[in-house]
């Protein structure tokens, strides 16, 4: 059975701190790993990682994939209260021409002023 595990499940930090969120996976026919931010309802896309060792950056957020260790990390530097959200890791895998996203439970990040 395909599995995605995120850690920690929750995290409370102060504004300005740096956080690292972890994601590990066990899936068949891996295609890519995606990170989403979920504040109220709709998960919003952050990154898609396909190749190992190549860091993707967007402002204060960055992410990297390690296909040997079957894992990824999401870093957020200089956190702000607006970063408070659930961060979801998902793995896209395929079976023939069918694709599906398998999600982890998410990490609830709370950034206090």
């Amino acid at each position, binding site marked *: 059975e395909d599995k995605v595990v995120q850690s920690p499940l929750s995290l409370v930090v102060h504004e300005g701190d740096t956080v690292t969120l972890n994601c590990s996976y066990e899936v068949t026919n891996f295609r890519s790993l995606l990170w989403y931010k979920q504040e109220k309802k709709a998960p919003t*896309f952050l990154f898609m990682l396909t190749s190992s060792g190549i860091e993707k950056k967007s402002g204060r957020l960055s992410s990297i994939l390690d296909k040997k260790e079957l894992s990824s990390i999401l870093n957020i530097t200089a956190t702000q209260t607006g970063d408070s959200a659930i961060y979801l890791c998902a793995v896209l895998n395929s079976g023939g021409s069918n694709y599906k*996203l398998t999600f982890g439970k998410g990490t609830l990040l709370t950034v206090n002023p």
Partner: protein
Amino acid sequence: DAGVTQSPTHLIKTRGQHVTLRCSPISGHKSVSWYQQVLGQGPQFIFQYYEKEERGRGNFPDRFSARQFPNYSSELNVNALLLGDSALYLCASSLAPGAQYGYTFGSGTRLTVV
């Protein structure tokens, strides 16, 4: 530029009833996927449709069914509702199945079964 739209936003149903949820993908997107997100959990895959054909099905009972229309909008139907069906139902749209196209989520339908 309209994103993924889902209706209704909230719904309350009684056990045993039937429900239909609707999703309109981003214009030009031909693939729609449905996910169920129970409180405190990540979304769980239910169905994927592409070009009006079912392309994948998750581990859900036959009470769950879906279809995609010629305009690429989609419906998710759930029969004989159980309390455990209470969840946020998310629709994701993409140009086609596959990693390179990305998946955009709608704001979801919050279903409460009482």
